[in-house]
C-alpha cells in the first residue's frame, strides 16, 4: 500500500497541481479545504506527509501544525508548510510550530519534489 499524503489548501487550482505531482510521486492523495478538516483527516487517516497551506479559513496552518506536534500519536507525521507569505517572521513561525520544511509560493515543482523526498527519507 502506498503512503498517504494530505494536501491542505483552500485554493483549488493549487490543489490540482499539487495532487498531480503527489500522485506522480506514488502517494495516495487526500485533500482538505480548511484547517479543521485537515486536522480531522490527519487524526483519522494518519498520512505520512502533510502539505499544509498557512492561510486557510477556520484554523490556520500554524495552528494545525502545533496541534499535530502536541499529539504524541501523530509524532511521525512529516509536515511541509506552504505559504504565499514570504516574510522572515512567517518562516520563523512555521519552523517554530514544528514544520519539517517550509516552502514559499510560488514554488518550483522540481524543488518541491526534491524537498519532499528529502523530508521523507
Amino acid at each position: 500500500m502506498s503512503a498517504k499524503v494530505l494536501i491542505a489548501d483552500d485554493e483549488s487550482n493549487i490543489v490540482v497541481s499539487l495532487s498531480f505531482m503527489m500522485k506522480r510521486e506514488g502517494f495516495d492523495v487526500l485533500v482538505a479545504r480548511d484547517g479543521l478538516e485537515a486536522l480531522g483527516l490527519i487524526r483519522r487517516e494518519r498520512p505520512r506527509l502533510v502539505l499544509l497551506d498557512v492561510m486557510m479559513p477556520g484554523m490556520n496552518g500554524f495552528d494545525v501544525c502545533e496541534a499535530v506536534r502536541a499529539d504524541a500519536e501523530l509524532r511521525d507525521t512529516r509536515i511541509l508548510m506552504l505559504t504565499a507569505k514570504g516574510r522572515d517572521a512567517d518562516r520563523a513561525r512555521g519552523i517554530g510550530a514544528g514544520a519539517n520544511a517550509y516552502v514559499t509560493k510560488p514554488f518550483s515543482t522540481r524543488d518541491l519534489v526534491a524537498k519532499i523526498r528529502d523530508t521523507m527519507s
Partner: protein
Amino acid sequence: MISPAVVLGASFGYLLLLFAIAAWGDRRAAEGRSLIDNAAVYALSWGVYCTAWTYFGSVGRAATSGVWFLPIYLGPMLAMLLAWIVLRKMVRISRVYRITSIADFVASRYGKSPLLAALVTLITVIGIVPYIALQLKAASAGFHLLTGAPGSAPAAAWWRDGVFYVALALAAFAIMFGARHLDLAERHEGMVAAIAFESVVKLAAFLAVGAFVTWGLFDGMDDIWAQARTVPELSALFRLDGGGEPFAYAEWFSLTILSMLSVLLLPRQFQVMVVECVNERRIRRAAWLFPAYLLAINIFVLPIAVGGLLVFGPGAADAETFVLSLPLSQGAAAIALLAYIGGLSAVTGMLIVETVAVSTMVCNDLVMPSLLRLDRFGNRAGGDLTRLLLNIRRVAIIAVLMLGYLYFRIAGEAYALVSIGLISFAAVAQFAPALFGGMYWRGATWAGAFGGLLGGFAVWAYTLMLPSVAKSGWLPIGLVEHGPFGIELLKPERLFGLTGLDSLTHSLFWSLLVNVGLYVGLSLARAPAAREASQALLFVDVFRRGGAEPVFWRGRARLDDLKALARRFLGAARAAAIFEEEARGFGPPTPERVADARLVDRVERQIAGAVGAASARVIVASVVQEEPLTVDDVLEILEEASQLRGYARALEEASAELRAANEQLKTLDQLKDDFVSSVTHELRTPLTSIRALSELLLDAPELGPAQREEFLQIIVAEAERLSRLVNQVLDLAKIEAGGAEWNWTEVDLRALVTEAARATSELFRERGAAVALDLPDTVPALRADADRLMQVMQNLLSNAAKFAPRQGGRVEIALREEGDGLVVSVRDNGPGVAPEDRAGIFEKFRQGGDEATRPPGTGLGLSISRQIVEHLGGKMWVESEPGRGACFAFRLPLHPEREPHERESADR
C-alpha cells in the same frame, strides 16, 4: 504627695525621651524616610495648639462657667473645616518663596519691607512672651502641687528652681533640633516628630485622668451629672446662660472668631502648619483629624471639672489643678504623675515650637537688619556668615525663653499673667487683615498693612493690655475705672462709651475695626508701588503659575558677586549646589558673566530661607546694580511671563499634534505593510498555480489532452485573476489621486442591479447560496457612471458570496426609492460585522473577519466602492448584527450636485 526627686526624675526622663525621638526623626529625615510625612503625624503636630492653658485651664474655666471653655476649640474646628483651602494657599506661598515665619510672610507680601517685618515681630514678642511665662508657671504650679510645696509661686531662688532648668533643657532642645542648620525651609523633622509625640502623651494622660475621675471616683458620666444636679451651685454650670444673666452671644462669637484666627496666626501654629509642612496634600486629611483631636481632648473637661467640684466642694480648691489634685487626693500617685507628665508635654511642646518660631523672627527681622546697617558687618569680605547666623538664632532662643522665665519670676501671680492666653490671641489676631487680605487682594499696599497693624496693635495695647497691667497693680487702676485724665470717653474698657460688651469682645471690636479700617482705607488711598504690586501678584496668583513664573527684577549682576554672597549666607556647599545646577543649564561660567534675573531671584530666595525675605532683599540689593521698577515694568514683565506661558502651551500643543501625527504615520505604515503583505499574498497565489502547472506541462510530455486542457484553462483563469488585482490596485490609486475618468450618463439602476446579479450568479451557484431580488417595477433614471456603479455592485455581490455560509447561504438584493434618491442594499446571512469593526470596514486595506479565517481579498473592494459612491454624490454604509449577517447599502441622489463640473472636465 510625691517626692520631688521622683517628679524631677520623671520630668527629665521625659525630656530625654523627647531628645531621643527628635534625634530619630532627624535621622529618618536624613535617610529620606520621613517620619512625619503623613496626615496623622501632621495633624498631631498641630496639637501644639493645646497648651497648659488647655490642659489645666479648660477644667478651671469649665468649673466656673460651664460650657464657656468650648469656643476656644470650636473656632479651630471651624477654621480647619472651612478654611483649609486658605491654609493650603499659605503653605504653597511659603514653600515657593521660602517664607519661614509670619513676620516674613507679611513683610514679603508688602514689598519685602524690613519695617513691617520688625513691627510684626515686635507685636509677636510683646504678645507671646507673657504666654511663655504662663506655660512656665503652669509647670511650676504642677510641680509644687505634686510635691506638696505651698503655693505656685517660685519660692526658691532661681538657681534652685526646677522650672529654670526645665527652661534651659528646652532651650537646649530648641537649639539642637530647631537651629541646627540655617535654611528653615529645610524644616525640622525631628522637632515635629517630638511635638506629635507630645500631642499623643497629653491626650493619653488627659483621657486617663478623665477615665479615672469618671469611672474611678464616680459611676460614669450619668452619675456625675446626677450628683451635680443635687448641688444648687453646680446646676448653673449646665445652663448656657450661666444662671440669671442672658447668654452672651457677642462674647461667644468673639471667642470663636478669635480662636479661629489664632489657630492660623499664632507663631507656633504657623510654624507647624506652614513652615514644617512636608507635603501639601496632607492638609486635607489633617484638616479633619485635627478637629477630631480637639474633640477627644475635650471630652472629659466637664466631667473632671464637675467631679472636682463634687469631691472638694465648690470653691474649696483651685479648679485649674483638678487634673492633678483629684488623683492625688485619692492616693492615685501614678495617675497624678502621669497627669503631670501630660501637663509637662503640653508646656514643653508649646515652648519649643513657640521659641523656635519667635527666635526666627527676632533673628531675621530685628537682629539681622541692625547688623546689616553696620558697616563692619556689611563690608566683611568673603567670610562665611552661616555660623554667625546660627549663633544669633541660638542666642535668640535662649533670650526668648529667659525673657519668659524672667516675666514668670516677676509677674508670677499677677492678673496680667492669668489672663494672658486670650490677650495673646487678640494680639496675633491683628495680623489677620494684612495676612489674609494680602493673599487675596492685589490692591492691598504696604501703607495699609503697616497702618492697620500699628493701629490695631495700639488699640489692643490700650484696651486690653493696659487694663491688665493696671489690674496687676503696676499702673493706677483709676486709669481703667475713670479713663486717662478722668475722660470717661477714653476709658480703656468702655472706649467711646461702648458698653455692654466684655472687655475681650470690646477690645477685639475696636482693634479690628481700626485695623481693617486703616488697612482698607490706606490701601485704597494710593495705588500699589511696583514692588508691592509685583509681590501681590506672586502671592495672590500663586496657584496660577505654570513653569514660566515672572521674575520682577531688572538690572545687572556679576555672577561672582552673587556666588560670594551665596557662600557667605548659605555656606560653600549649598552655594556650590545652586551654581552647579545653574551651570548645567548655561555652560561653564566666566568670571565676568552676567547673571540673569532668574538666577538673582533664585539666590535671593535661597538667602531668604536663611535670613528672611526682607533681609535677603537688602543683602542682594547691596551687590547688584538694580533698575528701579515702575508699575508699568511690573505689568510688562507679567505680560512677558504670560506670553512665555502661552508659548509653552503652544509648544506643548504642537508637540502633542506631532506625536499624534507620528502615531498616525505609524498606523499608516503598519497598514501599508499589511497591504503590501496582503497584495503580495494575492499576487503569489495565482502565480503559484501558473508556475506549477506550466512547469508540469513542460516536464510531462506524456500528459493526455484532457489533462493538458484543464491545466491550460487554470493557467488562463489565474492570469486573468492576476490582471484583475493589478487593475484594482491601480484603479484605487487613480481614484485616490483624482485622475479617474467619469462617464456621466442616464442610468437605469433597476436594469443595472439585475445585470449585476446575473453576472455574479456563477459565484453564488459555486457557493450554493440562494439569491433573492426585491425590485420595484420601475425607478426614475439617475445620472451616474454606469461602469463604476457596476463595479460597486459586483464588489458588494462577490463579498456577499464570499461571506455567505457554505450551507444555507442566502443573499437578498433590494432596490427602493427613498425621498429624492435610490437605495440599493445587499444583505447576506454570513457572520456579520462586529460593532468595533464597522467604522473601519470601508477603510483601505481593512478586511472583515480575522486574518486567519476571512476569505482572500485585497481589502480594496469596499474602499473603492465607497469612494465611487461618494464621488457620485451618494453615501455607503453597513448595518449588521454579529452572527446575523451584514447588510451593505448605498444611496444615490437623483440629482447629484457635482455632475456639471465633472462633465465639463470629462468633455474636455
